């Protein structure tokens, strides 16, 4: 199985499209950082204008942690797209290139093939999010230094001590990875159904966008289905930037996301095992 996974990872990283994600993040994130270098003070003042009326404060609030936090929040739609580029191609790509019949006629079970491809896709996803973390935090800390992290929601302002931030980012990025793994799993499922990677990419993005729109609409009709939309839980990495952390909510979100991954993966497994390879 390890051999199969290594082979799949090799195939993934030999395709140019794999690097689109890493390059895109490598360009987008510094762009956000530069924007914050230019506009950051003003942005921070805007964010804190109300408390500034009543309080005097000192400290480096415009720091790498704040910029990283903003970066993570603003890439909610872009990262899924970069994930689908690769995950959507994992199975459909074999059909397009005609290599299914090379692979499936080897003495390995279809289950092993699916698991290895799936795990390779998840590894790619995690590497991409790790790259985001490294570039975002690394560049942020280099350009802006460290300091307390201010997190503003519609209900509260929380300022986390400098020493209380890094572990939150670790768990937050870890959770973002889990969320992106759901996206990868969905793209993977779509990939098992078709013979061209474009279909899974577009379908996955369509599902995400539709779900996000439904979540955002304040229409009673949708109130019943909102809690079941996985897109709600993808942004749950924010839970780690709360004080105290709502453990029950974290567990629930984790369960929902893992549940989705399990369902998408199992469906793909069943489909692939039954599939007649005609390409």
């Amino acid at each position, binding site marked *: 199985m390890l051999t199969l996974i290594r082979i799949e990872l090799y195939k993934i990283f030999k395709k140019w499209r794999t690097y689109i994600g890493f390059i895109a993040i490598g360009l987008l994130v510094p762009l956000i950082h530069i924007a914050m270098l230019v506009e950051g003070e003003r942005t921070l003042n805007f964010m804190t204008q109300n408390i500034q*009326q009543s309080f005097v404060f000192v400290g480096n609030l415009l720091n790498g942690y704040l910029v990283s936090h903003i970066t993570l929040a603003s890439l909610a739609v872009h990262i899924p797209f970069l994930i689908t580029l690769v995950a959507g191609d994992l199975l459909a790509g074999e059909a397009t290139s005609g290599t299914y019949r090379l692979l499936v006629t080897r003495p390995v079970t279809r289950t092993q093939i699916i698991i290895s491809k799936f795990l390779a896709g998840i590894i790619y996803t995690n590497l991409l999010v790790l790259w985001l973390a490294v570039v975002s935090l690394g560049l942020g800390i280099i350009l802006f230094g460290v300091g307390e992290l201010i997190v503003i929601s519609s209900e509260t302002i929380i300022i986390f001590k400098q020493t209380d931030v890094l572990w939150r980012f670790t768990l937050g990025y870890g959770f973002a990875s889990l969320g992106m793994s759901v996206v990868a799993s969905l793209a993977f499922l779509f990939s098992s159904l078709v013979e061209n990677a474009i279909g899974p990419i577009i379908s996955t993005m369509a599902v995400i966008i539709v779900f996000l729109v439904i979540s955002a609409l304040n229409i009673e009709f949708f109130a019943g289905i909102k809690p079941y939309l996985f897109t709600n839980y993808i942004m749950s990495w924010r839970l780690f930037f709360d004080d105290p952390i709502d453990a029950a*909510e974290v567990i629930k979100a984790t369960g929902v996301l893992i549940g989705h991954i399990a369902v998408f993966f199992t469906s793909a497994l069943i489909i692939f095992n039954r599939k007649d390879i005609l390409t």
Partner: protein
Amino acid sequence: MNMKKIILLMIFFAASLYPQNKEPDKILKDVINKFNKVKDYEVDLIIKVDVEFLKVPESSAKIFFKQPDKISLKSDGFAMLPRNGFDFSPNSLLKGDYTALYEKEEKIDGRVLTLIKVIPLGTSSDVILSTLWIDEGKKVIRKVESTTKMSGTFTIDLEYDDKLNFALPSQMIFSFNVDKMNFPSAMIGETDTRKKRSKMHGDTLTKGKVYVSYSDYKVNKGISDSVFEEENP
């Protein structure tokens, strides 16, 4: 403005019913003179913020003060102080022209304190009315209650260390009521449906307290003007 005039009238009226048997201006002068023995000071602070919508870690900072009105807050990390409690010197509290009225004596925590009402004159001050509780024996202000135009009403409770001969507090409790603030979430792109609506109970006034401990005062050791040259918020 109208409100000030009304209050003024009401106080004069009240005052006319009770003959003034103390001179508020003299009492305040004594307090100012005692404070002015401090030419400059440096002090370490530990700040605890207890406000419902604000979660801030305990922070440590330093305040530098130089007569008459140079003051600077510094910290290695992050620190925040209520604007109205930052400079607690009598000079700051009694800035500009004002009218002082003796109201009464009141016993608080075993001490007899003199209540003086201070009404700033003119329109530049944010404060409409202040009440000062003065310890005439020690010539220090123990409590301030101020009503402002922009920031509601706040109270400052001051404790003093008997060992310190200067009018510099060892503890300050700053209490305030503010309107619930609306925070811009545009930068955050919040999309989660979790609601902490339970925190909002219908009324929008939020109570808050800030506890400040002062220690290790360095008084009249000389402080260079350059210390105050950084931009003070």
